[in-house]
């Protein structure tokens, strides 16, 4: 039986190691929980009152959760939470278009960055989440060699579904220089611009 509470701030405490998650509806997202830790969930009022249920795995929260914080003796820490509340996607952008431009502009031995893809697709350099969505779709569409040539602005690898090891292996085999830190060495290679 679900408990109904007033929205805005919900506190959940995981008092047993048996409860391993909070499941968020309607998004169908799972957030893992540490035992004996208090969590605060910020919930907006899109769906009215928040309903909370409990099952064998943990809590189920029915409401529009916008932020989750872990509260402990040292204060609160926002968990990694990927809800892109204030971001939008360009309606006309399709991953096939991204593949086309990567084919045209980023040959073997070259890399480009999330920021470049974001500038090309959205006109601004910081739409990381939609860019990642495009890359994952292109990856799932079988264009892995191309998507592996997109790295983060600091040279870090992009952690696409296939993992960073295979990305690094491909880029090394294509002659892309790396630093000891594991990042692409942008002192020796310039990321390709997709805008020129």
């Amino acid at each position, binding site marked *: 039986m*679900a408990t109904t509470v007033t929205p805005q701030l919900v506190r959940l405490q995981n008092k047993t190691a048996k409860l391993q998650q909070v499941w968020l509806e*309607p998004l*169908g997202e799972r957030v893992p929980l540490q035992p004996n830790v208090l969590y605060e969930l910020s919930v907006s009022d899109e*769906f009215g009152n928040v309903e909370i249920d409990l099952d064998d795995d943990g809590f*189920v929260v029915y409401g529009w959760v916008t932020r989750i914080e872990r509260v402990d003796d040292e204060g609160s820490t926002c968990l990694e939470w990927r809800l*892109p509340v204030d971001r939008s996607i360009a309606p006309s952008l399709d991953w096939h278009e991204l593949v086309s431009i990567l084919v045209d502009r980023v040959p073997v031995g070259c890399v480009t960055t999330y920021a470049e893809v974001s500038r090309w697709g959205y006109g601004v350099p910081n739409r990381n989440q939609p860019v990642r969505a495009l890359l994952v779709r292109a990856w799932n569409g079988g264009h892995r060699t191309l998507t592996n040539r997109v790295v983060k602005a600091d040279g870090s690898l992009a952690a696409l579904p296939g993992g960073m090891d295979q990305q690094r292996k491909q880029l090394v085999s294509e002659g892309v220089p790396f630093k000891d830190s594991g990042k692409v060495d942008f002192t020796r290679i310039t990321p390709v611009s997709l805008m020129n």
Partner: protein
Amino acid sequence: MATSTPRSMVEVAELMRRSLPAGISLSQFGTRMRWGRGNDDARQRIATLTREELEAIGLTKQQAEDWAVAYEAVEKLMPENPSAAGRVELMRHAVKLFVSIG
């Protein structure tokens, strides 16, 4: 009428909220749709979902389409979401059940 694709999570929330059947809360809707946890549960539900259940919930064809559109947008905005892809398929199947009954 085709629903325009939400371009942000705020628009996703708005579309989901107005696509709930009349008098049904979010938890009641999820519970009665029985779409479960994650893509696999939703896809398995396709085999058991019936027209009678949809009618009992009070879901309309347009609302089913809107939920499919909403989860398609979630897929784009949250590519690692573990449930959206399966729920798109489930809600598309629900639309087909409405079409098949005329």
